[in-house]
């Protein structure tokens, strides 16, 4: 794993530092706050330079409980700053959107949930339902609120459309109905126990979350994961990508009303999930990862390679047919175009950014697990439309299958777990390229070597911020297709 540098930084120079980073082609990844000691607050900014270079964590001590916003320089930080305001009560001056994000309007936040003074078992209460939405006036402008309970089996979130006829003027996404306060649930847990929670931040990303969390703990304790465990982790991470992407294709075909293709995609997903169950006992690949390796060894026999080989042929056939379906292609091409600059500035990640001409992938650029020994083929496109996003994922399915089949013969007998006990007052950063993009875990341990603060940056938190930019100016008929082409989850974003 490429390392991470910790750099103390004065609040006064932060602005300039961020500007220089962007100028040099770097990128801000996330920001969060924590309390290193009672009465002391620190902001953390995660920055990345070129591929292969270590990540940088900038630590900024806060003197008086307020800070200056960096959202004007790096727009993607806007959401992180608003989250910090909601959860820690820290205000950012010059913020372009000084509004609630993670906690809804109408909730009393006199004592912010992360502050030491917050009563442990007190649950937030929605006192009233103010309407924070913009007024858009004009002849024929209609406002359509949709959610949080929407059609079909979907996650809860509210979407408010302002539109004239078919033309969407503005989309307001009100997420965080599902905010469970997961980051705070980690406080006081042992490193090993934390995995159970990490696996349940985003169900369809269970393994990637467990992996990024474990790698953060391993970075904090300095333990080395045995080779067999690293290879198996890589294999499992790709199995996760496989069923997620198959689900994605099925769902996308369904939104273009290609019903048989929708059903076939979901059927292929089910087959991949059943392979997960047979291999690991869990359709979501849970109860395996642990700091230091895996909880138990796996024996992927010949049956797995055979089953994946059969699946691969069927997927190839399926993808070919999709590529020949004009009605499907017609609905995807030029739909929901995400410009490269918007993708970069607003922090798009994963297949979404790779479809907009940004060639980044943590598996290759900051290799972890066994990706250094078995590098993935990274697909990217430039058009930035729904079709490009689908093409990237289709290519990733095949790359995942190829990678799994390459890893299987590399598995040699050996241990799968090393002792891994973090010492007091240590910290670490872990990351993974999930099926939806970059995932970061920053973990801090207290004096007692128990978790003191865990920050989770999920890929969907990044991509939900980007998504509305592709909706403004588009039309209602394409909305569902566009949303499906992003492949978002809400659980990971809301946490």
């Amino acid at each position, binding site marked *: 794993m490429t390392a991470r540098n910790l750099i103390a930084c004065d609040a006064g120079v932060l602005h300039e530092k961020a500007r220089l980073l962007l100028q040099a082609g770097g990128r801000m990844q996330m920001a969060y706050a924590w309390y290193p000691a009672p009465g002391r607050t620190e902001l953390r900014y995660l920055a990345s330079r070129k591929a292969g270079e270590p990540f940088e964590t900038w630590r900024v001590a806060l003197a008086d409980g307020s800070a200056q916003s960096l959202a004007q320089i790096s727009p993607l930080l806007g959401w992180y700053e608003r989250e910090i305001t909601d959860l820690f009560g820290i205000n950012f001056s010059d913020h372009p959107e000084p509004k609630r994000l993670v906690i809804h309007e109408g909730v009393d936040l006199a004592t912010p949930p992360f502050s030491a003074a917050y009563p442990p078992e007190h649950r937030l209460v929605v006192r009233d339902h103010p309407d924070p939405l913009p007024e858009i006036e004009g002849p024929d402008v209609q406002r359509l609120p949709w959610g949080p309970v929407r059609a079909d089996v979907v*996650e809860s979130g509210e979407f408010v459309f302002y539109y004239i006829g078919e033309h969407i003027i503005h989309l307001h996404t009100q997420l965080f109905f599902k905010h469970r306060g997961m980051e705070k649930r980690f406080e006081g847990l042992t490193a090993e126990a934390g995995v159970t929670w990490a696996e349940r931040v*985003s169900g369809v990303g269970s393994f990637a979350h467990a992996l990024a969390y474990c790698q953060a703990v391993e970075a904090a304790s300095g333990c080395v994961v045995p080779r067999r465990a690293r290879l198996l982790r890589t294999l499992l991470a790709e199995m996760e990508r496989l069923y997620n992407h198959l689900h994605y294709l099925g769902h996308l075909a369904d939104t273009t009303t290609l019903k048989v293709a929708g059903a076939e995609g*979901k059927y292929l997903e089910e087959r991949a999930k059943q392979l997960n*169950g047979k291999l690991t006992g869990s359709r979501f690949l849970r109860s395996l990862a642990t700091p230091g390796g895996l909880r138990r060894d796996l024996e992927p026999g010949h049956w797995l390679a055979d089953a994946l080989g059969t699946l691969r042929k069927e997927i190839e056939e399926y993808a070919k*047919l999709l590529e020949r379906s004009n009605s499907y292609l017609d609905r995807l091409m030029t739909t929901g175009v995400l410009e490269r600059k918007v993708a970069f500035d607003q922090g798009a990640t994963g297949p979404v950014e790779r479809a907009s001409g940004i060639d980044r992938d943590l598996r290759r650029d900051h290799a972890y697990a066994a990706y250094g020994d078995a590098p993935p083929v990274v697909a990217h496109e430039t058009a930035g439309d729904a079709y490009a996003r689908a093409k990237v994922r289709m290519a990733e399915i095949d790359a995942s299958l190829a990678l799994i089949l390459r890893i299987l013969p590399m598995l040699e007998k050996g241990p799968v777990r090393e002792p891994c006990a973090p010492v007091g007052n240590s910290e670490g950063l872990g990351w993974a390229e999930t099926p939806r993009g970059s995932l970061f875990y920053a973990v801090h341990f207290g004096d007692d070597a128990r978790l003191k603060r865990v920050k989770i940056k999920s890929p969907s938190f990044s991509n939900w911020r980007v998504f509305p930019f592709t909706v403004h100016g588009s039309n209602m008929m394409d909305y569902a297709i566009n949303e499906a082409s992003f492949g978002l989850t809400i659980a990971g974003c809301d946490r």
Partner: protein
Amino acid sequence: MALWTLYGLLEGKATTDWPNGKDDGQEGVVGMPRYRPEKCDKGCTACADVCPTRAITFSEGGAASAPRLSIDYGRCVACQLCIEACPTGAMETSHDWAFGVRERTDLVLDDAGAAEKGPERQSPPRSGFRRSLHIRHVDAGSCNGCESELQALNNPFYNLHRLGIFFTPSPRFADVLLITGPVTYAMRDVVLRTYEAMPDPKWVVATGTCAVSGGIAEGGYAGGHGVGEIVPVDIYVPGCPPNPAAIIQALLLLLDRAPQNVSEGRYGK
């Protein structure tokens, strides 16, 4: 399109005939731990110590010297940690996943005997709904694992429609409110309003350990303690997440078309 129609026809039938047939699609999938009291080393509390959701607890047994073990499967997330921690093999890996029950107390196993039963909830009679049931699903703060399995119900393998059970977009047309997640603070009103919008008779299915008890998201500043705090529950389906076959079993149980597998925390009796 003709292309896809032909393709679909050539693919043949993918649907299982479970529960009439054998293939439930869950080969190898592990379920909740099974407790073997005869193997338990009384006095050891290793299983309770690692249990992340306090599903396994020990309480003083009164006259008996050893502490009394109790397992609340309504809190179990099937993480398998107790099985790995138990030095004597009293916690066993199992394939016990079809855990749907009518009474919350049926999920509680108590070493000393039956747990005290609360007043039995009077579910509205199901006659007339057995062949056609419409469900409104509400996600009240899940991790999306339950949604993934609920969505799977309509894939060609499970094909829920064959059983006369359908998801419906509007609560106005729904017979069942199926809720996942611990019910976060922001979803409380939403759940209540959806429930109130449904016509009588109506039933509630708490799906997944979060919905049954709050699970890993219980408590804290935003999480809840499950659906039961807000609306009356007719069927509890713990599991993290319950797999599609487990959800089907619970829905058929609601309709009196499948037996309940669990009684007083014991599976298969």
